[in-house]
């Protein structure tokens, strides 16, 4: 057990009933006290600790494992090991691959088990015990929203991993939380026109929706986008997260008169519901004189791999794909592939980019002081990280970049070649007014002091 933490102000006072009084008054001393930049886990030694909060078990475990690989790679590149990856292509950047403000980057990991409660507990452990300066990761929106709230209270920056709900940078947005991944609303805008092109404007859609924050916003965005095209919505049914067998929800689809099934599911839920829908013969059906179609608004290569042949020809959207031709994507795919022998998933990409962007913001700010780092990230415009020029919008901490419309590959040449990029929807088309989702970022200062 080698948990020898530096004897700090916290450990000196720990223990004994006297602690009650002392700890409660302590924030007063330190915020008003001697050093203006006193903040949570200010790095004092020659290392700085990142906290990677990952779903290593549970519904999104596969994404979590891929994110972990990406984070470890990012740490290597930040410390000047390996081929440097995106650091060479990111523009502008001040990163030199010599650590962060002269300190070596180290990391701790925690398992969120794809549960909000557990994610918070593990983030708390990394902040309170391991002294993490920044928390990043997660592969579900409820995790992201829960951890983001915690980080706001603790005064620690949270760089969200894979989270696609509108709420993360909408009604639940936080000053200390940042998201690089796109969201359900953008999926709807990007996917709508392609669906109209492929399937026509006279369609009846049946939604099956995962019953949680992401599913709801996904369904809402898809309904908006498809109804704007002239589609009708036959039914929208909520299914419990992790239902496993969706057959009792799929049978009513067969004779509902709908000719499109939209699966607002993600991860294993999507793999199960899609393969089961195909088993029900839905893709061979003719309804209203039209071919029955299935649409999965958000999918990843990992899910496509899981769904196997069922994914062929299915439309959806992605944040990023390893076969993109730009310099940043090529550099990242190359160094990830060389390290792990497989191309990175979109979860890995967003995780890696988030870690690099945080590091870059720290270097530009010249300090780890969170409000200064937040300022450096807000309205930061960059290029060379995949998806073309990207803006980290200050008003809601959402990244705006090109969105990919993808389609399951009909004739994959390898087990990784499962998706084709149909169209790269330019950033201007998917940009929206931050006011539509409401929410309030909250203040950056005074910096909360984690206990």
């Amino acid at each position, binding site marked *: 057990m080698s948990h020898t933490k530096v004897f700090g102000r916290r450990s000196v006072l720990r223990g004994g009933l006297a602690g009650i009084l002392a700890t409660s008054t302590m924030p007063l001393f330190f915020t008003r006290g001697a050093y203006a930049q006193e903040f949570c886990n200010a790095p004092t030694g020659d290392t700085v600790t990142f906290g990677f909060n990952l779903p290593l078990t549970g519904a999104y475990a596969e994404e979590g494992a891929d994110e972990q690989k990406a984070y470890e790679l990012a740490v290597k590149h930040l410390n000047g090991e390996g081929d440097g990856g995106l650091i060479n292509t990111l523009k502008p950047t001040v990163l030199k691959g010599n650590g962060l403000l002269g300190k070596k980057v180290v990391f701790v990991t925690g398992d969120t088990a794809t549960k909000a409660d557990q994610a918070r507990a593990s983030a708390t452990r990394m902040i309170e015990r391991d002294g993490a300066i920044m928390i990043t990761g997660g592969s579900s929106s409820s995790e992201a929203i829960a951890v983001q709230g915690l980080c706001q209270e603790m005064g620690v920056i949270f760089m969200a991993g894979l989270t696609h709900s509108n709420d993360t940078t909408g009604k639940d947005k936080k000053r200390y939380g940042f998201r690089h991944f796109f969201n359900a609303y953008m999926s709807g805008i990007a996917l709508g026109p392609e669906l109209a092109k492929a399937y026509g404007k006279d369609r009846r859609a049946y939604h099956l929706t995962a019953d949680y924050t992401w599913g709801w916003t996904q369904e809402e965005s898809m309904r908006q986008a498809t109804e704007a095209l002239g589609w009708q919505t036959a039914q929208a049914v909520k299914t419990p997260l992790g239902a496993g*067998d969706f057959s*009792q929800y799929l049978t009513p689809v067969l004779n509902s008169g709908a000719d499109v099934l939209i699966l607002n599911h993600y991860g294993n839920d999507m793999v199960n519901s899609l393969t089961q829908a195909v*088993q029900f013969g839905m893709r061979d059906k003719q309804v209203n004189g039209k071919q029955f179609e299935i649409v999965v608004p958000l999918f990843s290569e990992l899910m496509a791999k899981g769904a196997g042949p069922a994914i062929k020809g299915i439309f959806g959207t992605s944040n990023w794909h390893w076969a993109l031709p730009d310099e940043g994507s090529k550099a990242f795919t190359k160094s990830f592939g060389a390290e792990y022998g497989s*191309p990175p998933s979109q979860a890995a990409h967003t995780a890696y980019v988030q870690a690099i962007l945080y590091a870059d913001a720290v270097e530009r700010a010249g300090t780890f002081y969170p409000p200064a780092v937040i300022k450096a990230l807000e309205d930061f415009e960059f290029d060379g990280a995949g998806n073309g020029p990207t803006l980290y919008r200050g008003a809601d901490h959402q990244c705006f970049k090109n969105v990919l419309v993808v389609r399951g590959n009909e004739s994959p040449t390898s087990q990784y070649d499962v998706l084709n990029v149909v169209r790269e929807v330019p950033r201007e088309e998917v940009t929206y007014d931050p006011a539509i989702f409401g929410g309030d970022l909250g203040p950056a200062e005074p910096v909360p002091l984690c206990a």
Partner: protein
Amino acid sequence: MFDAILLQFLNGLDKGGAYALIALGLTLVFGTLGVVNFAHGALFMLGAFCAVAFRQILTLETVTIDPTQLNPWGQPLEIRTPLVQGWFGDFGAVLVDWSVPVSILLAIPVMALLGIAFERGLIKHFYKRPHAEQILVTFGLAIVLQEIVKSVFGANPIPQPMPAALQGAADIGALIGLTPGVITYPLWRLVYFLFSLGIIGGVFAFLRFTTFGMVVRAGMADRETVGLLGINISRRFTFMFGLASVVAGLAGVMYTPLLPPNYHLGMDFLVLSFVVVVVGGMGSLPGAVAAGFLLGILQSFASMTEVKAIVPGIDQIIIYLVAVVILLVRPRGLLGRRGVMEA
């Protein structure tokens, strides 16, 4: 509307088949051995992983590296050839295609041996202990089993494709003289339903028509008297535990194409299988089967939009609601005998 109800009914039968199979094994153990087996779900899960393991063995590949070709990230391309196909040619390919049904041949001996080992090694010592302790020790066993599976096969679900010939849906409507294309149902789910009927029929016939089965049934009714007659009941009980574990295992094997198994599969089914057993009546085999189908059908109908419009959320709780009502109104369950576990 008629076809919608018929479809939902079919779905209920197919779900019910799985529930009945799991509950059957649980009741066999409870009825004969008097043990409340919380590890039963884990046996179901182990069966599913027999199919996974079988397929993984079949699809072992040789990897050769072709330095002349490069993959997109600049490494030499790897060429993989399945060994079985290399050895047996087309027969190997057919074997891989039919791996799930064929793996039953692997699952039967494996599950029987595992069941016997658990009974001899652990459960045996708990016959005389209170039910609470049986629950606890089998619960612990279930955790250990699922964690071992997790450390061998990983935490992620592993999809098992069904044979190509059984993919897609069958046109049931056309068979019974309706317009073609109105009532279609996935072939594999129909296979699963028939399979479950076959297993259930087999177990019942075995208990009814063999001397062995007769003794076991006698033992279920009055263990002491049978023991006094000088019949070695304990060996037969070991056999019954093995049989129950085979039944659970086969239910798991055939379920894999419907739901990619992961290590947690057993726990997900455990609560459900207990509810089925309790609704059917503890210790009653026909009760377990009837309750399995009944709950499957109820759950399927509760998921209809029309039903949910009247009672929101009913699809989430119907199974538990039925269990609570039955337990409060008729604690013996549907077909339970008087005096079994009654207070």
